[in-house]
């Protein structure tokens, strides 16, 4: 679809801006994702009302008041699990770039070894995830 769009744009009279078409599409996807999520959670999600639910950052911290308060330690635990996936993405994207570009000077391993290395990496991250699961990090009670 993207190719069709770009070629369509490239042949049109706004040729000069065709390079920006991808950015525009990204913007549209972002907009649709944001609006879609709000609409979907509004229509599909259970509707509960209450003082806490109506506040900003529902179920989170108090938006008004002293900032020098102690946070529940669960926030940190979830943040650290978030880091597991963050690091995963951080490494997988450059890996993909190298994997997809075999004549790149960084490529020192054969294709199979390159694939095996990322599998091992994901496996190690999976160990961290399973460990956190076993320790009950995802139970909020």
């Amino acid at each position, binding site marked *: 679809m993207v190719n069709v769009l770009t070629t369509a744009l490239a042949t049109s009279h706004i040729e000069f801006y065709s390079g920006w078409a991808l950015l525009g599409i990204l913007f549209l996807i972002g907009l649709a994702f944001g609006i879609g999520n709000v609409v979907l959670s509004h229509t599909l999600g259970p509707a509960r009302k209450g003082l806490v639910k109506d506040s900003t950052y529902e179920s989170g911290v108090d938006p008004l008041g002293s900032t020098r308060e102690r946070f529940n330690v669960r926030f940190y635990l979830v943040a650290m699990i978030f880091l597991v996936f963050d690091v995963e993405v951080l490494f997988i994207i450059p890996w993909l770039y190298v994997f997809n570009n075999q004549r790149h000077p960084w490529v020192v391993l054969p294709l199979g070894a390159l694939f095996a290395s990322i599998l091992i990496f994901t496996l*190690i991250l999976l*160990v961290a995830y*399973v*460990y956190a*699961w*076993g*320790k009950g990090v995802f139970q909020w009670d």
Partner: protein
Amino acid sequence: MNIPLNHLCPEIIMIVAACIVALLGAAKSDSVRRSAQWISLISLILAFIAGWRIGTVDAGPAWPLASFCTYDTLLASGVGILLVLLSWDMPFALDPAKSDQTFRGEYFAMMLVSLAGVSMMAKVDNLIWLFIALELVSIPTYIMVATGRGNPAAQEAGIKYFFLGSLSAAIYLFGFSYLYGFCGSTDFSKIAGAFAGSSQVPYVAIIGLLMVIIGIAYKIAAVPLHYYAPDVYQGTATPVTAFLSFAPKAAGFIALILVFNLTGWKLSHGAARAVPDLLMVMAVLSMTIGNVLALLQRNIKRMLAYSSISHSGYMLVGLAVGPLLLSHSTTNGISAMLFYLGAYSIMTVGAFAVLVYLQGKLDAAEDLDDIAGIASEHPLAAACMAVCMLSLIGMPFTVGFLGKLFIVQAAFSSGHGVLAVIVMINAAIAAAYYLSIITSMYLRDPWTPFSVRRPGTIQFSAAIAAALVILLGLFPSVLMSMSQYSGSEVTKMVAMDHSHGAALIKTASTLSADKNVEMRLAVRAH
């Protein structure tokens, strides 16, 4: 890392075992979690065997630091076995009813990861790898210090250790950035080439080296970054103290050797003279401050912390006089330092094992009063402690004597007679507080009722360590030839014959007398 994957076999074994042990730590039942110690022990034995086998296989010129790496791996896994044995029922639960809520799996997983870092240290060939290996050693120890025992002192020790450790990591990373700025690469071979190409070491590289030394001084607990050591050693559980006196120290010294190896060891002229001068000042201050302050302590863990500072000083002497000698390999300071590192690890771990075995007021014996008169009830434990203490003093027929002998010999024959005399004076000062432990055990009446810790492995590790102290003191040829080959390999003074070089351990273990080793080395040097 530019070495074949099978040479990383010991580290891979340890990391895989660490993953398994960590997963077991999340298990609900305590009986499952109790397998953590066994898995750790078996994996370390396998890593030791793998390291030994790799050391005896000829790697050729492709792996110029083969015996240095092998020595490091054998040290990490061998002392690691003793450390696992002595922390068998870790972490201590102060309340026995809550013993099923301990972090047993986590503790052993962290230990294995840290030991893998120590073992990997000698194999790095890039500043980034060096940093990762150093942090792989350090970060697990921050967790071990804090979770080792559930009291506020351990939490305080953990916080102190963590923040100062991060500070030191920042300092040596800053130093690495100067080294990178000097030659535009983090690759060891490129940095070494840049040092070899410059007739005068430029200031930017000297600043980098000085910052690396200061940052790593924290890991080895040398003056001026020694302040944390007594508090942290005292605050945390005794098995963790034993671990701290080995893992960061070994890693730090090996990192320092690697960094100096980059410079081609030509730091004795011009402004670069500042680097060995700094090392010498640090060595003298560490020895003297460590020993004098240890005299004032009544808490044995605190005393051993100061003793650890002073032993870092002795090893820094070896590093400072370094490879200044070109003739004979026994007097190579680096070899002497590596020998001392192995000797010190064994004797200090043995001393801590005895403290863990004797259960004191908190979790292990701490005060001089706690061990008063134990010789009558527990003669074996007292004997092990006495052997380790005599070795720490440097009495003949122990491995500690040979360690000090080689250091002094290296200092003398490189023309640093003053340093050698300071080492000997300090050894005499140190005798006072080590002997006070022995007199407390043998000559005093019991002060408090004794109880001993149940697992037999703790006693076993103390006995192994004490036996090794004596055996290696009488038959040092294995440890000696390994440290000599490693030292001469790193300093590139003895032109290594690569067709035989890597197979050194095989030949070393078959050599019976030290004389033989010396003769072979002398022959090879010509």
